[in-house]
């Protein structure tokens, strides 16, 4: 078997290689059967103690979420710390945060596919799963924030409706959001499932019988590896990637217009769409790093999710983190340069007001922390990357909090000023949604192949 198109120098003669040695995306040269067995193992073996501990914690958080959301539905959103001055706080912060988390998955699966980046093969499946779970978590927040969640379907245009021929307002970014997120979720789900069909067929053929075989037979759609099907399949994957590429840029751009089309100082700015997209990819890669570092260690998949993968992700994190830092600086510059007193006040308040600690925490996590990734040793140090990835997530959550709450709490009229203090329900729901996300991810790595076997096989053979 060839070594995957890798050029190396001849160890006996010490001759210089023709080209720079290509990065290896799999350790060693496992056989095709070995790849199938290694990746199927977490699904076929009983889960270890680590998995059970994580799952118990995550499920406890989900139970807490259910209880708190149930109470919220009974009592109304007054149980949160919202008030007349700050009508959006943890809820919309969480919404924007989770939507952002999803972006790395689509970037890895779609944009890196178009750029023919081989390093995506080991990580795309779990990153796409993460996207789907993150969008589910995000979708929860507008729903529970409505106050009357049973009327949530009013945001979709449908006919006949009880309101006569009254339709949704298509000029509103909140309606654009509905379309953007529904499309994003649907296309991500289809892309994820389509990519999994060949692997589901592999699992179907490995299963010895019973319910497992039955379920995989239904899900694998009769896939048999025919080259005529493969040929069409690759074209469809490319087409979907081409459609998802502008989608990944549009979703957070549209989310940012929820803010940018308003007149609130700190929100009313044209820089928001690219700034939000960069932030989304940055936070998404932070979460992918967190998840993959944990799963590669606990599931013993270091052979497939190598340090080279982590380094590649660290480079994207550094790039997007620096873009985010640049955007922060531009916001301050424009506030000064515009001469608009409200804008100036907002940014002075952001850096010196009662929420200044949130702002500095955000700068520490999002601007300073990723700079450590300029060093190759840092990019290849797994414990350090883990710490960085956690800080990225903390920083990006606080970024949204700073934009939303600091923007609202001292608006145009001093008589309308106020403060937001989270209640136990704000914090409980925040924790609960993390529990929901991790529960779904933990179930995913037990039930479905978390690495795309067929794609890894393609890379292993060059």
């Amino acid at each position, binding site marked *: *078997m*060839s070594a995957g198109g890798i050029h190396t120098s001849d160890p006996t003669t010490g001759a210089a290689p023709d080209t720079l040695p290509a990065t290896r995306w799999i350790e060693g040269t496992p*056989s*095709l*059967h070995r790849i*199938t067995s290694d990746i199927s193992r977490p699904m076929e073996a009983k889960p270890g103690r680590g998995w059970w501990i994580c799952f118990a914690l995550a499920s406890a958080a989900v139970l807490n979420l259910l209880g708190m959301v149930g109470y919220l539905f009974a009592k109304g959103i007054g149980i949160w710390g919202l008030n007349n001055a700050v009508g959006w706080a943890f809820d919309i912060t969480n919404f924007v945060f989770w939507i952002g988390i999803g972006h790395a998955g689509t970037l890895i699966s779609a944009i890196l596919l178009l750029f023919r980046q081989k390093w995506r093969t080991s990580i795309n499946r779990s990153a796409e799963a993460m996207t789907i779970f993150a969008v589910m978590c995000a979708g929860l927040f507008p729903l529970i924030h409505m106050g009357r969640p049973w009327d949530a379907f009013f945001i979709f*245009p449908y006919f006949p409706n009880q309101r006569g*021929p*009254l*339709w*949704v*307002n*298509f*000029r509103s970014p909140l309606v*654009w959001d509905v*379309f*953007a997120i529904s*499309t994003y979720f*649907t*296309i991500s789900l*289809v892309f994820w499932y*389509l990519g999994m069909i*060949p692997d589901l*067929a*592999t699992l*179907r*053929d*490995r299963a010895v019988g019973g319910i497992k075989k039955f379920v995989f*037979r*239904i*899900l694998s*759609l*009769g*896939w*048999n*590896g*025919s*080259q*005529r*099907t*493969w*040929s*069409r*399949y*690759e*074209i*469809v994957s490319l*087409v*979907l990637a081409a*459609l*998802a590429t*502008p*989608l990944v840029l*549009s979703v957070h751009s*549209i989310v940012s*217009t929820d803010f940018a089309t308003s007149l609130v100082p700190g929100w009313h700015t044209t820089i928001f769409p690219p700034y939000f997209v960069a932030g989304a990819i940055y936070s998404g890669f932070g979460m992918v790093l967190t998840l993959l570092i944990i799963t590669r260690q606990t599931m013993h998949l270091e052979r497939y999710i190598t340090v080279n993968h982590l380094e590649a992700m660290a480079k994207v994190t550094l790039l997007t983190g620096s873009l985010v830092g640049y955007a922060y600086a531009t916001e301050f510059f424009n506030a000064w340069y515009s001469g608009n007193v409200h804008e100036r006040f907002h940014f002075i308040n952001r850096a010196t007001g009662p929420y200044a600690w949130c702002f500095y925490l955000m700068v520490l996590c999002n601007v300073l922390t990723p700079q450590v990734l300029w060093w190759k040793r840092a990019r290849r140090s797994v414990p350090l990357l883990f710490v960085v990835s956690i800080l990225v997530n903390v920083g990006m959550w606080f970024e949204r909090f700073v934009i939303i709450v600091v923007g609202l709490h001292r608006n145009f009229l001093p008589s309308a000023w106020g403060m937001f203090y989270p209640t136990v329900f704000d914090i409980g729901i925040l924790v609960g949604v993390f529990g929901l996300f991790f529960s779904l991810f933990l179930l995913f790595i037990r039930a479905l192949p978390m690495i795309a076997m*067929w*794609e890894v096989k*393609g890379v292993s*053979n060059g």
Partner: protein
Amino acid sequence: MAERFLVGSFSEPGPMLAAVATLRSAGVAIHDVFAPYPVHGLDQAMGIRRSRLPFVTLLAGLGGLCFALVFQYYTAVFDWPLDVGGKPENSTLAFVPVCFELTVLIGGLGTVGAFLLRARLFPGKPEQLPVLGVTNNVFAVVTHAPAGGNEGPLARRIMLENGADEVDEREGES
């Protein structure tokens, strides 16, 4: 009517690719090749034409775009023109995001639907595997081998010469 096929199993993609190229140049009709992952160069070796599915994407995407544009215009201008902050009823620029999203949504779903129809993939379809392991680590070349003809022996010889692990004769529906 049942047809006779020859199934050659390979454990490596290289020899399989060479066998397919030789078979085709020798004029043997290749029914299909089965592989655990898409092998580069196999389409050309088999002479498979590039799929026309992107045209479906184009049509479905344009359909989504037109629907979004007409629907927004109809609801906002004709059916219930509502003054929102003095904005024009036909706020075409504000309709762009929804137009884009529906283009992508309907284009994407249309393409996947057309693919599943064309490749005849549906839930619960019984798998028809030429040999066990084509979804794991086996590459299988399937050629037509009509009884009494010399295509069968020729194909068998070419496959064995190119490193096939095993060549079996099968009967089945094409």
